């Protein structure tokens, strides 16, 4: 096992870098986009803010549609669009587009749930006090939903890591690709095991970071 580890050390490091690049970049982008979409879903479904069925149903339909397509197919479907946006059909960069789209749709629904969990009574109280709706959203709803949002970002990060393992199919590289090409196609069982171990460690690491962030934020506040 150690021998094969040394043998693939370079490849593993390269794969790790690719995975980190794809996951982190698309996580950052999808959190921003998903947060905005989640806010739109929340605001348009809340009678105390700006209820609007048409916008809610439209945005919700788009998010649902994206979520219902398996990532593998979404990725292939998005290749021409990737080429248009990032200028290439192959490599880690090309994978960023479908990865971000899928993760954003996923996170949008989770964010909507985080916002909806904010106490309706608190919302009522601050609106009754004469506060501006935009201030209610950014100064009350967002801070109140913070802890729940961070938990959901953690869940999204783990999903993104999982999605990114399929990037090899379009030459995106990454740990998943390494496991597939060496571990499966070249019958190197050890490589497969090492890759799985690395992925397990990464998921644990993401979860740990999320937990610590929640603890730090919960300490201030309630």
């Amino acid at each position, binding site marked *: 096992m150690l021998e094969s580890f040394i043998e693939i050390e370079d490849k593993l490091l390269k794969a790790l870098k690719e995975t980190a690049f794809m996951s982190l970049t698309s996580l950052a982008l999808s959190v921003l986009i998903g947060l905005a979409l989640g806010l739109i879903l929340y605001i348009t479904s809340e009678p105390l803010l700006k209820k609007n069925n048409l916008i809610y149903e439209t945005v919700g339909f788009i998010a649902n549609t994206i979520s219902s397509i398996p990532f593998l197919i979404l990725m292939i479907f998005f290749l021409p669009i990737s080429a248009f946006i990032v200028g290439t059909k192959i490599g880690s960069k090309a994978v960023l587009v479908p990865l971000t789209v899928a993760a954003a749709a996923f996170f949008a629904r989770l964010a909507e749930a985080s916002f909806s969990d904010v106490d309706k009574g608190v919302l009522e109280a*601050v609106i009754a006090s004469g506060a501006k709706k935009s201030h209610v959203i950014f100064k009350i709803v967002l801070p109140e939903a913070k802890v729940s949002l961070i938990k959901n970002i953690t869940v999204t990060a783990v999903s993104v890591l999982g999605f990114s393992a399929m990037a090899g199919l379009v030459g995106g590289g990454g740990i998943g690709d390494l496991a597939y090409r060496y571990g499966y196609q070249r019958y190197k069982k050890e490589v497969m095991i090492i890759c799985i171990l690395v992925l397990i460690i990464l998921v644990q690491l993401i979860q740990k970071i999320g937990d610590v962030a929640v603890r730090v934020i919960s300490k201030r506040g309630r």
Partner: protein
Amino acid sequence: MSDEKTATGLIEIENVTVSFKQKKKKIVAVKDASLTINEGEIVGIIGSSGAGKSTLLRTINRLQGVSSGRVLIGGQEIEKLSEKKLRELRNDIGMIFQHFNLIGSKDVYSNIEFVLLESKKTKAEAAKRIDELLRYVGIEDKKHAYPAQLSGGQKQRVAIARALANEAKILLCDEPTSALDAETTEAVLNLLKQINKELGVTIVIITHELDVVKEICDRVAVMNGGEIVETADTYKLFTEPVNDFTKNLIQKESSFQIPRGVLNEVPGKIIRIDYYNETAERALINETIEKFGVKINILHGKIDFIKNRPLGVLFVSVDGDPARTREAYKFIKDNSARTEVLRDA
């Protein structure tokens, strides 16, 4: 808050109906309700749950829009106000809730500061006002505590401070004491009375606790099935209710069953005596005993005070010579508000 319309009350609810569509079914929460609330009054809205009390209360600050009818505050129809004017009006109308509804991620100071900054006060003005408010509601020492660290009574005090932050003229209270124990309820009600008296704040309070009504309300509106079925002075409502629903509601509260064992053992006539207004002032029992030489045994009794006026009910047995007992009963009947024979001699 002036208008060419002649305003008789500070808050005028005129023929207000509120209906919702829920799963294609139309639900009428408030039906043709009219109520006038004068400046400086404490008005209660009572009724069973689902009677539309909360919905009606929320039409006063337009948290709930009306389907038809009008709500006027100081002569201004609030349905017609722009978003900006509505926010200004809401600065004048504070609101407190059963579950306090404090912002959990902010401490006491920031909870109150938020509403002050929203009404364009500077940080320095806010700081000064917050100190004043916390002193007034008696929780200066909790300035930097978070809601989760406070007791129910303390949370309601913070909520009251927040509601009054912008010198509100009206305070809407949605079951403010229903989540509090008896002792804390008393303290919070006293604070509300003080606010009404010292600051001249008009208070509208919804509750299902009749004790709360007796304690602080000048007038009461009774709601049933979305309608206001009766509006009366508090003392009058408890002594001479007109509507059947009101009678039922009040009777439920004061109903008392004499245990069967007692009914069998105690000799003589058993009667229930209600007394209020001027009849409550007399030493009726004593007079009857002296005048007719009958034995009177008090089985159960309760006296409430509404705005310092007594309202009582007594269960007594009258025993002695049959003719004298009859005369004694007639005397009691003529000199009390209402009597009822529970068992004849």
